[in-house]
């Protein structure tokens, strides 16, 4: 008796559930999806249309014109500063250098935490990641305080007599080096995370098998560990490359003229020179570059590794 009764109760809601499923799915996903469509997808499409003058917003805008794209792709200078492709490639090189540096700095530490540190690994990982969770601006600012000609480092060098009272290390501040250093500093903690996750999921028995079969530790690393951690490395690489390619804050704070990047020219075409169409064309170009990158590396990406 009791068993039959339970059976009925178990069966009843099933049919009810099935009928409402489509409506429930729509209800659950509709608002978040609408938000992303309205405030992410539509604006991006709008920028592309705007860059060719399908719509005009400010007085400088030219209706239905490829002028902005021509300006961007053909002229080498604009209002006296280098523009377009030159700066784009400079930014690409910078992002590439920063991403590779971050991976090289973070890999040994992620390896140590995942495979050597034992039970303390999560605590130590948190120690590495915490700076990333603090104010980005403050961390960049800290380097301005350290690097500038009358900053902590150069004053200290003067104090101990390594640097003459009147001389300054010009390469240290308002330079491409400063931007490179600070960007690498800012993104290293973030890079450690996906590499750590990839290495942590490694089956230690495979490493043992490899060494039992006579491989040295170096061979095991080269032939087993490194290939298996590549998804983490690629994820780390992409997730540093993309934010740094559009960077304009760090160049402005520690980069000066020498550190001026593609992101800066986009930003200033909106805030200073008011050539919004040109800025839009460059933004679309940057997005296209990012999309190509994602098309190449996308299948290796597991976004979860950066959030958990």
């Amino acid at each position, binding site marked *: 008796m009791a068993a039959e009764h339970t059976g009925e109760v178990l069966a009843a809601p099933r049919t009810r559930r099935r009928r409402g499923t489509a409506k429930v799915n729509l209800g659950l996903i509709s608002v978040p999806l609408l938000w992303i469509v309205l405030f992410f997808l539509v604006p991006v499409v709008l920028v592309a249309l705007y860059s060719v003058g399908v719509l005009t*917003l400010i007085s400088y805008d030219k209706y239905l014109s490829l002028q902005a794209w021509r300006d961007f792709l053909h002229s080498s200078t604009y209002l006296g500063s280098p523009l377009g492709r030159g700066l784009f490639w400079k930014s690409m090189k910078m992002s590439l250098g920063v991403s590779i540096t971050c991976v090289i700095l973070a890999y040994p530490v992620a390896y140590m935490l995942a495979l050597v540190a034992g039970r303390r690994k999560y605590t130590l990982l948190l120690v590495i990641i915490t700076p990333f969770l603090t104010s980005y601006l403050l961390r960049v600012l800290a380097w301005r305080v350290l690097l500038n000609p009358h900053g902590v480092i150069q004053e200290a060098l003067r104090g101990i007599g390594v640097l003459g009272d009147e001389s300054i290390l010009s390469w240290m501040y308002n330079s491409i080096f400063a931007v490179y250093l600070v960007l690498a500093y800012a993104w290293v903690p973030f890079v450690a995370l996906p590499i750590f996750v990839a290495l942590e999921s490694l089956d230690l028995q495979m490493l043992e098998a490899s060494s039992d079969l006579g491989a040295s530790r170096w061979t095991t690393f080269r032939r087993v560990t490194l290939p298996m951690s590549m998804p983490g490395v690629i994820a780390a690489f992409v997730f540093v490359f993309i934010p740094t390619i559009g960077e304009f804050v760090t160049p402005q704070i520690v980069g000066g003229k020498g550190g001026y990047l593609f992101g800066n020219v986009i930003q200033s075409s909106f805030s200073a020179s008011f050539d919004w169409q040109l800025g839009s064309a460059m933004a679309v170009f940057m997005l296209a570059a990012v999309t190509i990158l994602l098309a190449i590396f996308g299948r290796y990406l597991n976004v979860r590794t950066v959030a958990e």
Partner: protein
Amino acid sequence: VNPAISKGGRRTLWIAFWFLVVFLYAPIVILIIFSFNDSEIVSFPWLGFTLRWYKAFVHAPALLDALQTSLLVATMTAVVATALAIPASIALVRRRFFGKGLVSGLMLAPLVIPLVVLGVSLLILFNAIGFPLGPITAAIGHVVIAMPFAILTMVPRLERIPPALEEASRDLGATAMNTFRLITFPLLVPALISAFLISFTISFDELVIASFIVGDQVTFPVYLYSQLRLPERLPMVIAVAVLILIVSVIVVVASEVGRFLSERRLEAQTGMAADEYGSLRAGKG
């Protein structure tokens, strides 16, 4: 014998680890030390210990306004991003529907757009539709970048709540809404708090998008950024930023530890309940 590392290698890696820790923390520590320097220049020479920069900001109304705007924007962002992430995560974890791969890709796409591109895109959108720039537009933009993080915080938690618990509730006659209210939601609370804090932090610290679409009522990062042109303001601005830094580190570390602990508790609780229900069903079926 550890196949991953030799004795000498272990020592080298520990040195690499501590080297990285020093590299990461030294600039921040030096900044904090020099924020107490009794000098207009945040550097050597050391002219004595002072708290005056920490006291000065109380009398800087523009700064306080900016802090208030940031609190407002971050609160709006966190509330909306978390509220939207709940149904989105449930749909992505528990439901099957047409185009799910595309939808989840789209929901997470803001993770991989350079912020400067999103910033100018939203600027053009709000100009095109004639919506006035202000804290609301900034919060709208921040929700776009915070929601993927909120979703990615909730999804793993949802995956660890056994569906059997929800099925049991439905089988016992509870409506879908009641099941959510009485079963899913309470188990989701720790992830919810994390998602809220993460969204809040992202918004509070966000400069790039805000600089394009916040309008005249600037947020704190935008204010700080604009003050960098005035060196005499630097010590005070740094002092406030240090205070915020300390608060945010405490909040973030506490929430991470809290999440870790609640994860353990969840496994203990739900594991037992789900096992019982599973054997019950198996017995009846």
